[in-house]
């Protein structure tokens, strides 16, 4: 299969402002794999999506030769296991693999929820200070994983954990902008800041970040308590 041919049997059912969809597409793009993107309206899910992901009814879903696969991190490893002539995103050593899986899970289950609660103030007022400290603690934790020396979580090249962490690049800034304050500042988190610049210097990363306006509109809507009159229209 030549690099420039679209694999007829490869589709991504996605939602473009969602990081889960973008993680999958960034992985495919990094490997030069062509696919068809099908944009889902999450308020009006396609019958295909419901058929391919009956359990969660969510995006993204990868459809490869008629075989559907949901869950972004699972899809990313599947891509790595299947298109083996492209550079792998997973490290080769079993311990390193366990570590990146652990930290990717940490990002989704602990880091991002904590950041959202802190930045968007999704807690009781008297709890907010505590939630900010908690979020900062988790941000520091992931920054320590990166450390001072590494260009990327994957070392010299973008890897699985860098992709798993794109939340921090594409979504947290929009969240902070809408909320009017910065949790993750350059001064407090210099290594993450440097990593962000490294990532942004790559076309593949820039191409896979959501557009600012719809994302901003989403966070403004969310901050308002989801006021109906502020409901964004996702194109």
């Amino acid at each position, binding site marked *: 299969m030549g690099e420039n041919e679209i694999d007829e049997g490869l589709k991504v059912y996605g939602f473009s402002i969602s990081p889960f969809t973008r993680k999958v597409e960034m992985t495919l793009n990094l490997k030069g794999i062509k696919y068809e993107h099908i944009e889902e309206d999450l308020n009006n899910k396609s019958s295909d999506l419901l058929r391919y992901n009956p*359990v969660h009814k969510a995006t993204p879903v990868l459809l*490869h030769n008629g*075989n559907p*696969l*949901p*869950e972004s991190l*699972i*899809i990313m*490893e*599947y891509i790595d*296991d*299947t298109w083996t002539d492209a550079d792998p995103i997973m490290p080769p050593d*079993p*311990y390193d*693999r*366990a570590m990146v*899986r*652990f930290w990717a*899970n*940490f990002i989704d289950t*602990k880091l991002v929820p904590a950041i959202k609660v802190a930045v968007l103030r999704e807690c009781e007022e008297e709890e907010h200070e505590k939630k900010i400290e908690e979020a900062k603690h988790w941000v520091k*934790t992931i920054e320590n994983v990166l450390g001072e020396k590494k260009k990327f979580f994957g070392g010299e090249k973008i890897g699985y954990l860098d992709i798993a962490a794109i939340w921090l690049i594409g979504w947290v800034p929009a969240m902070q902008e809408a909320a009017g304050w910065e949790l993750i500042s350059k001064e407090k988190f210099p290594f993450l800041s440097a990593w962000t610049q490294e990532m942004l210097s790559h076309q593949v990363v820039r191409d896979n970040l959501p557009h600012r306006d719809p994302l901003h509109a989403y966070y403004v809507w969310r901050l308002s308590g989801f006021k109906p009159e502020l409901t964004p229209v996702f194109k």
Partner: protein
Amino acid sequence: MGKGKGDVKLLGAWPSPYAVRVNIALNLKSVDYEFQTENLATGSKSELLIKSNPVHKKIPVLLHGGKPICESLIIVQYIDEVWSDGPSILPSDPYDRAVARFWAAYVDDKFYTAVKGIVVADGEEAKAAAVKVLKDGLVLLEEAFLKSSAGEGKPFFGGDEIGYLDIALGSLLGWLRVTEKSFNVKLFEEATTPRLVSWVDSFCKHPAVKDELPETDKLFEYAQKVVYPRIKAFAAAAAK
């Protein structure tokens, strides 16, 4: 090929289905290991646990050559990749592997929440609804079983041998049995999950498994004394 005990250490606890997964995986690969129990009942955590899993402070933790690996499913994958000369735990085909990972993640996502839902349910109707959630999940797994190589008449999700999804789901059998006993319900039934009914039997008899699943009576008592009160207290606090 067993490795020296000092090399592999598991921080676990007999009631924990997550720790049981690791016991089973190590047994499958014939790895010698040292087992250190954390006392879940008192809730006090050992220094080693806190040091090895500072983020979650939870068992199981596998220490291999002193290096910690956390999260049961991540540990099972690690064991499969390191002791690659033993029987394979993950399927070799990338799609089958991804599907096994999907269902294992589903089990983790849904089943504990579903069991908790039954424990805190107030009244018969609420309980029945909560039980239905769990049973519906098992029906999905019955379908997944049929679609896997087990559909071709093999005894396990992994085929002839137990694999990743067998371990992920099977490790919960102690707790599922306790749920049945505590709330007088049947979760695995011939009418709805016939293949899984035989699977339960085959899984529990497997040499790598049979000494690891906690005895139902012992776990039942532990549930009544420690776990159910804790779940209820937590739910009550969260509701305020």
